[in-house]
């Protein structure tokens, strides 16, 4: 045996060893895709525009409040475009003061004086994209912590998509994603708002608003005040249905969700579940001031996203509250637990919508694995049987090369942590079907050379060297299409592309290098070889 042959054999053994190391035992080393093991795959779109809107709304209302607090009169603060605020009707005589207050308030925004007491403030692009980015990041961490609290094992939560505003969530083993979807989608933005009482109300503690928007507006003489908005509360009626109360609440919230420090399910005197919460120190101070002003009056707890805000309950403030409180309001154990969970894990700062959802039950995955394995084995046995019958000894050579191909493929998948999906199983066996092409190309070439009367050794050498370039060309073309497949595909299809790409690269090694070495071993013992079983 020549020295170089010994090296080649060592290389093959090392590659085989490494592959086996990374692939064995299969159940532990190769992870199965959700289509095989069962579970839910969800893609969410983060509506970043709603984060911008939220920020704009907040600035709009707080800027108005700041002007009022600064003793500067104005007609209106409006928002004509998504990132533009206009302050109208300020006193032209106090132009400099107004300008300074706006400048201080909006910071890096571009403020321009439109004349006649009107100002325009534009949110710059950097701030806008920072808010969007932040919205996605916060949503990501919030969803992650909510999923963790749901107790799903080995979940995946990650950003996806070219814009980076999509979130991929994989929940292995989850068969009914309804609860997970509800928990993840709920923005859980908690706000406390003071009630704007209509004139003439004296009994603040027991006042309830009417059940239509028009009736509420009528109480205020046709239109609700500028600093007030209407929020619905669903209340169970005596006949078992529900009706909606419309609360007139101050636009500017006293505290918002981020001010929460902790929340957990609690219990009332008669055992009804409630949600207990504590506030951060800073928010506690604000809350203290607000509750002092509102003792004996109602404050509403509003929960929801930018659009879907709802009043959860509107308790009467009995005494000054500093930094902890209780939310009551018709909870059962599960809903109290869920609300506490959502408040704890933080608010999702923006609306999220589910744009893709696939759930595979465990029985389907099991059937898929079984059928896929049966089909693959059948295909593999058919190829092996044919090669052995058709090429006899050389067929053994090809079968060894193909088997090694599969081992390397599995090893590489184990090493890269690639996921085996149902199309991936098809890719695996299809790779074998394509890899055998290289063997056939070489063997047919060797046969041709033998027919021309060449000696066995030179026929084998010529066969390999002549077929080599063809094989390279074939592999590159197939890899090109596999590459496009990879960039196109998501999930299962990407798994297919991955197995195809790894398998094709491995087959270059096995069909060309390993096969040649096996021939060298058989033909290279110093004796003259008269014939070749091919």
């Amino acid at each position, binding site marked *: 045996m020549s020295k170089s042959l010994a090296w080649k054999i060592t290389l093959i053994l090392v590659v085989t060893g490494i592959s086996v190391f990374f692939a064995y035992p299969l159940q532990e080393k190769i992870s199965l895709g959700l289509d095989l093991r069962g579970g839910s795959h969800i893609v969410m779109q983060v509506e970043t525009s709603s984060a911008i809107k939220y920020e704009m709304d907040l600035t709009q209302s707080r800027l108005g409040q700041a002007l009022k607090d600064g003793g500067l009169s104005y007609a209106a603060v409006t928002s004509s475009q998504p990132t533009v605020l206009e302050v109208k009707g300020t006193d032209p005589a106090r132009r400099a003061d107004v300008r300074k207050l706006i400048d201080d308030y909006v910071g890096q925004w571009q403020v321009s004086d439109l004349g006649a007491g009107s100002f325009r403030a534009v949110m710059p692009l950097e701030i806008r994209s920072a808010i969007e980015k932040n919205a996605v990041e916060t949503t990501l961490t919030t969803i992650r912590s909510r999923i963790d609290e749901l107790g799903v094992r080995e979940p995946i939560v990650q950003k996806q998509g070219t814009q980076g505003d999509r979130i991929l969530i994989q929940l292995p083993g989850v068969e009914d994603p309804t609860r997970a*979807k509800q928990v993840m989608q709920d923005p859980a933005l908690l706000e406390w708002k003071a009630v704007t009482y209509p004139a003439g109300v004296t009994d603040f503690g027991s006042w309830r608003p009417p059940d239509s928007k028009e009736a509420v507006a009528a109480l205020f003489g046709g239109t609700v005040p500028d600093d007030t908005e209407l929020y619905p509360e669903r209340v169970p009626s005596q006949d078992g249905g529900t009706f909606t109360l419309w609360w007139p609440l101050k636009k500017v919230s006293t505290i918002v969700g981020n001010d929460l420090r902790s929340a957990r399910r609690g219990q009332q005197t008669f055992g009804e579940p409630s949600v207990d919460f504590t506030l951060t120190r800073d928010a506690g101070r604000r809350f203290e001031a607000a509750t002092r002003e509102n003792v004996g009056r109602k404050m509403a707890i509003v929960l929801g996203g930018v659009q879907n805000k709802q009043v959860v309950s509107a308790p009467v403030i009995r005494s000054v509250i500093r930094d902890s409180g209780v939310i009551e309001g018709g909870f059962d154990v599960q809903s109290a637990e869920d609300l506490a969970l959502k408040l704890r894990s933080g608010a999702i700062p923006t609306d999220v919508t589910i744009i893709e959802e696939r759930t595979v039950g465990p029985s389907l995955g099991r059937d898929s694995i079984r059928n896929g394995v049966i089909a693959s084995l059948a295909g593999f046995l058919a190829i092996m049987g044919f090669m052995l019958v058709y090429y006899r000894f050389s067929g053994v050579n090809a079968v060894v090369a193909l088997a090694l191909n599969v081992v390397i493929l599995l090893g590489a998948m184990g090493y890269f942590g690639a996921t085996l999906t149902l199309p991936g199983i098809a890719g695996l066996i299809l790779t074998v079907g394509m890899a055998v092409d290289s063997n056939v190309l070489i063997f047919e070439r060797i046969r041709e050379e033998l027919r021309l009367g060449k000696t066995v050794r030179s026929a084998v050498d010529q066969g390999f060297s002549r077929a080599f370039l063809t094989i390279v060309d074939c592999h590159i073309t197939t890899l090109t299409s596999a590459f496009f497949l990879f960039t196109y595909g998501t999930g299962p299809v990407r798994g297919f592309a991955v197995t195809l790409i790894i398998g094709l690269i491995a087959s270059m090694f096995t069909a060309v290098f390993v096969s040649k070495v096996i021939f060298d071993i058989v033909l290279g013992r110093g004796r003259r070889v008269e014939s070749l079983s091919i």
Partner: protein
Amino acid sequence: MLEILKDTKIDFMGNRRIWMGISAFLVAASLIVLPIRGINLGIEFTGGAEVQVKCADPPDLGKVRAALKSAGLSSNLVTTIGDPKENELYIRLGSEAAETKEQDLTSALTQALRAATGWTGAEGRIDLNAADAATVEQLLEGFPDITRADAQALAAAISEERRKVAVLRSLDALTGLDKMTPQVMEYLRSRAVVGPFAIRSQSYIGPTVGRELLQKAFWAVLGSLVGMLAYIGFRFHFRWGVAAVLALVHDTIVTLGFFSLFGREMSLPVVAAFLTLIGYSTNDTVVVFDRIRENLRMRGAADLSAIINLSINQTLSRTILTSGLTWLVVLALFFLAGEPLNPFSFVLVIGIVVGSYSSIYIASPILVLWQQFLDRRKGARKGSPPSPKASPEKKARKVRTA
């Protein structure tokens, strides 16, 4: 030596007109079939929702349709799939549902199904045909006289049982499980029920995602065709690249025609199959082209037609062997791998045959036709060498890039 073909001398180029005629007919037929029959796009491309459930009892399709209608869900397909004895139900909600509904479509679907099967509801009890292992484990841990380990083992056993039978028909099916005691069984009966069906798979695809996927599929197919053109143009000759890509377009259109004719459903894996087909079919073409180039170098370019004939004959046994072997694999997938992979395998079953055929009867004759056309145009400079190395275009390109 066992050989299927020995020294064939088939005049492929001689009867190319017949075969190109047949191909032209197939392409034309496909182009007629496609707009008439259309392509059955799955919800991945149209947007929508689908659910596949296994029912304990034979489902009443009429009731299901009525329940969907009263839930305001516009279904475009309610059918049983597979063996009727398996009680497997498949429902698809079309794109209109995805466009108009803001509610959770898949949950609404299962709700409607529950209504259709006359299920009165679990009344706070857990449906073992819908609960995942974690939920069952939580439920079992609520039983006072069970250890945590036993609860876990039992929950796993229940999951395994469900995995095996797909749908539990009654709680009695669980009595034989390891770690199951009559007391636990009693507890389960008070806290759990078995619903009338189990969900095997459910999906929802939003309309924007569907449109994106359709666009991406188009670009991926186009991209890989251009990739093939570039690579073969680079390795052989631009003209050869065009010939190969025309063969690929032929393969894609004809396979698509069959796909449409048989009304199979287009899904992501099917697009993957088409891309695989493009790679595989190019493979075949490259093997033939490689041989043509080699023979051109060795024997000169006196008669391109004869050289192509020789090359195809020389590679014929390889073409038949490898295509045959890959075809065997694909057939195994088609017949044995089950419903989810069926449309995928269908494309390859048709495509591999068409692809191998086109290397011989489309790509190669185009080379001959193109050469004849060039020869005629050049007139006096008859027999200009078509070898890639000596062709004027190739030289010109080299100069440009130099």
